[in-house]
């Protein structure tokens, strides 16, 4: 009896009093979708306009890229990879966190995931989709990207399966589709709720179609639960393998600074790191914008801050390992590369990266920092910048300063590099803003379940 109360309390810890009833939860979550007149959407429209403009910029730069060719970017004969690859790794990293949260935390029975997993998964979906665009755009002949797939053709040719890019191509495709299913199946009961709450025929029809006729049958709940748990079990290895493969894009080479066994694991942690920071930023936005204070509480921010602290420490450790192996390995080029990273052409980026990724997160040792949303968000954004810088320096240092001394070159991005980067940010924001007004940003049925302490075994 008492133990059940504890569990109930533990569950309720994640929900503010204002949201501690099934009706309240339904009302709070459905409000932005069904009772829009509740509050003014001016901020939303401003944000929408800005992200739409940025999306336009992205569209233009893509069009120009296809017309003029890959040469519009800052790459050169030696540094053949630049922004697009760094952007790709960064976005896919963000794209990892959603599934990590919903899958890993589900398996670990972390109650607090209930109120954030929905929009985290949406974030995953959008980020992964955007990430998928970059490798294609950075091709010399983007329109032939489908040659990476084994399709029947009159040339009797097949993909070259040993290439990490093939692994990538399939890992991402599988991951995006997987996340889509995982996300959608979690949405179905909520869509049914909205179908039944909605007044307008249009809304009821649309929600109705996507709810697939869900009627809360205990049999269905049972099957859904089994599927959900199994998907979680599959999702964790998939997400880990995905970013390991991204790490292999670099590690499966013989270039100094790339050919490192530590890359796959530390790319995964890095992904979680940047992903969580993005979740934090979005959580703050949703909490404030959609009045979700009752469901997304300080507690959530504190626990995620703790995770950042842990990740930051692991990242720092990884960097140290890199430097150590470079020194201990004794390969001249490797050592020279580390020195170059600290003192070479990109030293500013590198130092900034270290500060953002390793130093500032240490603030979370202090509860005050963890419990201040402003602090957590600010640090989160800085860390995300740091993670982008990390990917950038990984690409640039090795390529600029490899073995062939005569071909050492430095890289200078062009306007188009930046347009595409910020354009993609705008596109991401656009998708998320639309998501906020079309679908429930918090999983109602999971929160309800959390509320009904009795329902806990």
């Amino acid at each position, binding site marked *: 009896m008492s133990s059940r109360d504890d569990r109930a309390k533990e569950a309720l810890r994640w929900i503010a009093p204002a949201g501690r009833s*099934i*009706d309240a939860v*339904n009302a709070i979550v459905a409000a932005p979708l069904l009772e829009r007149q509740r509050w003014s959407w001016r901020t939303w429209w401003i944000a929408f306009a800005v992200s739409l403009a940025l999306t336009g910029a992205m569209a233009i730069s893509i069009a120009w890229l296809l017309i003029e060719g890959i040469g519009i970017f800052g790459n050169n004969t030696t540094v053949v990879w630049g922004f697009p690859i760094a952007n790709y790794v960064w976005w896919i990293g963000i794209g990892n966190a959603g599934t990590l949260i919903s899958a890993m935390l589900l398996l670990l029975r972390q109650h607090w995931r209930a109120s954030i997993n929905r929009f985290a998964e949406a974030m995953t979906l959008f980020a992964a989709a955007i990430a998928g665009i970059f490798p294609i755009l950075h091709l010399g002949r983007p329109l032939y990207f489908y040659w990476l797939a*084994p399709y029947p053709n009159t040339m009797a040719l*097949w*993909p*070259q*399966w*040993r290439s990490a890019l*093939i*692994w990538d191509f*399939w*890992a991402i*495709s*599988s*991951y995006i*589709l*997987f996340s889509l*299913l*995982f996300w959608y*199946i979690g949405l179905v*009961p909520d869509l*049914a*709720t909205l*179908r*039944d*709450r909605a007044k307008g025929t249009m809304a009821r029809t649309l929600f*109705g179609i996507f709810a*697939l*006729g*869900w*009627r*809360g*049958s*205990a*049999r*269905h*709940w*049972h*099957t*859904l*639960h*089994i*599927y959900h748990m*199994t*998907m979680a079990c*599959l999702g964790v*290895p*998939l997400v880990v*393998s995905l970013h390991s*493969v991204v790490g292999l894009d670099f590690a499966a080479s013989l270039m100094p600074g790339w050919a490192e066994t530590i890359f796959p694991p530390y790319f995964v942690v890095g992904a979680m790191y940047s992903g969580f920071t993005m979740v934090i930023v979005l959580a703050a936005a949703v909490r404030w914008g959609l009045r979700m204070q009752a469901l997304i509480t300080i507690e959530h921010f504190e626990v995620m801050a703790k995770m950042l602290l842990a990740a930051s420490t692991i990242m720092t450790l990884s960097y140290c390992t890199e430097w150590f192996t470079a020194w201990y390995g004794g390969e001249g080029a490797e050592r020279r590369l580390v020195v170059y990273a600290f003192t070479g052409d990109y030293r500013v980026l590198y130092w900034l990266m270290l500060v953002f990724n390793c130093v500032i997160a240490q603030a979370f040792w202090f509860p005050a920092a963890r419990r201040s949303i402003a602090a957590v968000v600010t640090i989160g954004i800085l860390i995300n910048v740091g993670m982008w810088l990390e990917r950038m320096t990984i690409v640039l240092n090795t390529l600029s300063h490899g073995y062939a001394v005569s071909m050492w070159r430095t890289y200078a991005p062009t306007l188009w590099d930046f347009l595409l980067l910020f354009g993609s940010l705008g596109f991401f924001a656009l998708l998320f803003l639309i998501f906020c007004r079309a679908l429930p940003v918090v999983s*109602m*049925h*999971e929160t*309800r*379940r959390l509320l*009904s302490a*009795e*329902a*806990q075994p």
Partner: protein
Amino acid sequence: MSALLVAEFHEAGALTTAARAATSAGLPLADAFSPFPIEGMAELLGETSTRLRIWMFVGGIAVAALAYATEVWSAVYNYPIDSGGRPEHSWPAFLLFPFAVGIFGAALTGFIGLLVKCGLPRLHHPLFEINGFERVTQDRFMLALHAPPADADKRSAVDWLKQAGADNVWELEW
């Protein structure tokens, strides 16, 4: 042509107790409806099958095997090409593609299995006729019994449900 007795409850607790009592009272349970999964209810309804997982496993393995077969056939038999002196059958490099698509294969099989097993999509369903059924996706709980054929038994069953705490009881033909 059978009939259902659908009883509406306020509390998840009331629903479970009623369900338990009904089974002990020998009233055959048809189904239960709730805004969130209720632990134990599935067992009461005899929902213990785990075949879905087996399907997913089979589906995943099948897709992965197909993927690996494609790799080996294309790289070793159909058009072997010397790529940096690597072996034609570079199995370690060949593992990641099957792994990724295999997992997706499992997920897709599971999804299809889920729909089949639950008979979804089912946009039009007699239950939706019930006035107030929309509440089961929000905050109400409903229990469905197979209505006894004889009118007398039926009436007593309804009374029994009322006593068990049901606010309303509907009879549904289908």
